[in-house]
């Protein structure tokens, strides 16, 4: 588990010294120099060879070298975001080794290492902001598009830990953990006004203010408004009987965001709100085609108060309290008995809780983390009714508790050999019995420039309310479905010979069981219900190479090869939604004393099997970004051209869409101008 240097990496100047040892120690110092010996001076006189043996009095935040993390971590920084001009978190994740993004014109979804279920709601990837879980409590969705909490300008780093992460983070961390670390006020040190405009009548305005004051209060405020008309018409051959298959002005999207962060010494407050509206041009869920009164709206808000303190020498405590709200509603016009009936589908969730985390470095050769996380699902509600004539179809609500306790220890067996072992025990009100998920990692550096890792871990995901209760289409409930499980095995080698070069290779095997699938066979007894019927076996390898030059030039290539087998009722073979190959290339080049930056991104996504067992062809996307990075009279700017070669590629349709594949957008451009004051 990585703890970013920026998040929680603010070291404290005061060490609470307890215990007789310290008393004796200061006394012995006093003996040397009755006028209170100056420890600092003594340390300065130590020879280098002894400095490495002096213990640190203030407890560590346990900042791990990335190469020693028990995972093949991938990190994207604010600089990468500037270089490649990713518009949303989804864009950024699409650039990461092993991840691939699908958009069904409602939401964006992430697949990882050959696993993606079209029709799922991103419930198998844990999305965090500064270590706080953001997946909602109704669908467990981790949002990554315009419905994600943060504007891209607020992101300092994105850390992706592939593989199962339940041993520390609990549920939903089946395919990996994405932790987004935010910037602080001091990183802006002033105000910023941003205007964006682009193809398809897309606009965004944003105001940002950040400052660290002399009294150490650091404040960050950000607000933005986004609107896009989208495609003025979209052609769907499946609906050629209606309006010749054209959805006219049905692709509108809007989002509003507010985010604030306050930092004062070891205290951090985060608060955020995002509201995102999207029209659905695809007529999913049996909607009347080309009826503009068809949209979804998702609102998330949260508050998070986080406090770090050193409780003793070599022991740090992090306490956290949080409160989240999530509200969704979708409007779908349906044709029932030849008349138009508008269906209203909604979810409300409210949850709050706290975390305690202890980090200890007091035992020689050990660094341990232990914590307890409590979440009270105050309200989980699904509501569905027809508006006129009014007919209530579903009103399920419940509340309950989730508790997780974990312990992880990093044991340095030798200078170049680490054993990382941990486990987490989870109780979740959606399932009977406790979940125990272990993780073991052996990290060995045979030579100083080469790190090798052997990793084993498991993770679980409890069914959510959506999968448990009667759902929006009046499908059957299934009170007896159980948690999904994944076991993952991985071998990693990272070679860093210096000079900004990094080479990486991984071998992985993932075994997913009891995967919840919706039974869509009309003749089946469990028709419409989510049943633990799926099995997936994925194995593959990844190769990556990267070179960073001093002048900020960057070249990065990754290749992920996966073979995923899906075993489900009626299916046994190549999994749907699983490209065998993902190849990604990134190249950034600075110009004119780094005043300008050019970024090239090339993404290749191999062919995939659709839900109708057809082939969606392979495609590649090239994106080019040209940015003015150094402010010129206070102005900065960027021009991003996406899908430069105007590929009309196909994305897989979701389970509730008639379309087996959906044509995606061709070339688009977006211009951003920023003014700093």
């Amino acid at each position, binding site marked *: 588990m990585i703890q970013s*240097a*920026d998040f929680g*990496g603010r*070291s404290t*100047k005061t060490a*609470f*010294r*307890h215990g007789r040892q310290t*008393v004796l*120690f*200061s*006394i*012995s110092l*006093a*003996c*040397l120099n009755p006028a209170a010996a100056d*420890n*600092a001076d003594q*340390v*300065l006189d130590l*020879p*280098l*060879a002894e*400095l*490495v043996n*002096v*213990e*640190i009095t*203030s407890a*560590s935040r*346990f*900042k*791990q*070298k*990335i190469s020693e993390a028990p995972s093949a971590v991938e990190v994207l*920084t*604010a*600089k990468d975001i*500037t270089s490649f001009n990713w518009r949303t978190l989804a864009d950024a994740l699409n650039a990461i080794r092993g991840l691939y993004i699908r958009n069904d014109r409602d939401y964006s979804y992430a697949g990882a290492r050959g696993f993606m279920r079209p029709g799922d709601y991103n419930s198998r990837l844990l999305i965090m902001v500064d270590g706080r879980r953001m997946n909602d409590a109704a669908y467990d969705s981790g949002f990554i598009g315009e419905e994600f909490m943060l504007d891209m300008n607020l992101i*300092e780093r994105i850390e992706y830990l592939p593989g199962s992460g339940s041993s520390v983070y609990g549920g939903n961390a089946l395919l990996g953990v994405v932790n987004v670390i935010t910037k*602080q006020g*001091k*990183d802006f040190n002033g105000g910023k006004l941003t205007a964006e405009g682009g193809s398809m009548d897309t606009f965004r305005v944003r105001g940002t203010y950040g400052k*660290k004051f002399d009294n150490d209060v650091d404040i960050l405020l950000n607000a933005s408004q986004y609107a896009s008309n989208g495609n003025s018409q979209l052609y769907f051959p499946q609906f050629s009987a209606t309006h010749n298959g054209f959805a006219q002005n049905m692709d509108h999207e809007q989002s509003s965001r507010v985010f604030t962060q306050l930092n004062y010494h070891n205290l951090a407050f985060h608060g955020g709100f995002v509201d995102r509206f999207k029209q659905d041009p695809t007529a999913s869920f049996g909607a009347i085609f080309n009826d503009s009164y068809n949209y979804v709206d998702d609102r998330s808000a949260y508050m998070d108060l986080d406090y770090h303190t050193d409780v003793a*020498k*070599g022991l740090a405590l992090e306490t956290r309290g949080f409160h989240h709200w999530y509200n969704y509603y979708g409007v779908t016009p349906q044709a029932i008995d030849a008349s138009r009936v508008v269906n209203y589908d909604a979810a409300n969730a409210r949850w709050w809780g706290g975390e305690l985390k202890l980090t200890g*470095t007091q035992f*020689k050769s050990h660094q341990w983390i232990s914590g307890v996380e409590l979440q009270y699902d105050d309200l989980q509600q699904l509501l569905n009714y027809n508006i006129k004539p009014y007919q209530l179809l579903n009103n399920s609500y419940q509340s309950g508790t989730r508790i997780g306790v974990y312990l992880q220890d990093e044991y*340095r067996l030798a200078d170049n050999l680490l054993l990382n072992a941990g486990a987490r025990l989870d109780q979740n009100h959606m399932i009977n019995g406790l979940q125990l998920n272990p993780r073991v990692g052996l990290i060995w550096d045979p030579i*100083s*420039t080469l790190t090798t890792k052997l990793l084993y871990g498991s993770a679980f995901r409890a069914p959510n309310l959506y999968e448990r209760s009667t759902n929006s289409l009046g499908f059957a409930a299934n009170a007896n479905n159980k948690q999904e499980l994944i076991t993952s095995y991985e071998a990693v080698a990272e070679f*860093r*010979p*210096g*000079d*900004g070069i990094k080479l990486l290779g991984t071998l992985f095997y993932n075994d997913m069981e009891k995967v919840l699938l919706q039974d869509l066979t009309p003749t089946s007894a469990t028709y419409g219900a989510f049943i633990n019927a799926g099995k997936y076996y994925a194995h593959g390898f990844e190769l990556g190479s990267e070179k*960073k030059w*001093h*002048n900020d030039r960057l070249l990065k290539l990754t290749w992920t090869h996966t073979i995923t087998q899906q075993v489900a009722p009626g299916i046994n073979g190549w999994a749907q939604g699983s490209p065998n190959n993902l190849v990604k290339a990134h190249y950034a080049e600075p110009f004119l004393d*780094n005043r300008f930056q050019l970024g090239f991104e090339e993404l290749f996504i191999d062919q995939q099997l659709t839900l109708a067992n057809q082939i969606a062809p392979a495609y590649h996307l090239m994106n080019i970004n040209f940015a003015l990075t150094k402010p010129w009279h206070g102005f900065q700017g960027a021009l991003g051209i996406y899908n430069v070669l105007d590929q009309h590629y196909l994305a897989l349709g979701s389970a509730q869409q008639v379309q087996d594949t959906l044509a995606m957008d061709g070339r688009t451009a977006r211009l951003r101008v920023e003014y700093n004051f």
Partner: protein
Amino acid sequence: MRRLYRSLNRTGLVALICLLSHVGAAVAVSASSIEELTLAYLYNFLKFTEWPAVDSINEMTICVSKAGRLAANPDALAGRLAQNKKVVIKSLDTLKDPRTCQILFLDQTENSLNISQWLKQTEKLPILTVSDKPDFLDMGGMIMLIEADNRLQFEVDLTGVRNAGLNLNSQVLKIARDVRGK
């Protein structure tokens, strides 16, 4: 803790404990704050690095970023010498010209964008770059301080050191936890 010490002091216990525990040998420093240790490292690096044209330098300058933790105590090395020259600590505003620095220390609280900007500015200049940011060497820095086993250790990437025309004493490399780019 201090109160306890004072009361011990008042009762004369300190003197007694001194007599009992003090065997005349200098007591080794066994624990120190991370800021003190960081400073001690920087001071040692000043002693054990060869800068080109060192004779034309009047003062050995350690530059620290203004927002960092070491900027609070600019006189911490007052009166000390390295290579027979006075040692000064200078705090720099972000991206000020670092040409007068022998060592540039970048605090982990600096964001990575600033750090890479600093690194670009110092590229090919005879300035030893040091930081306690965990991925500093991957960013192109020369020496990274890292906490391990409740101690402060360091790792070196020699590529940048060589490009800058600097020379690190072999003693430094021996003690380093990890050396890249040999």
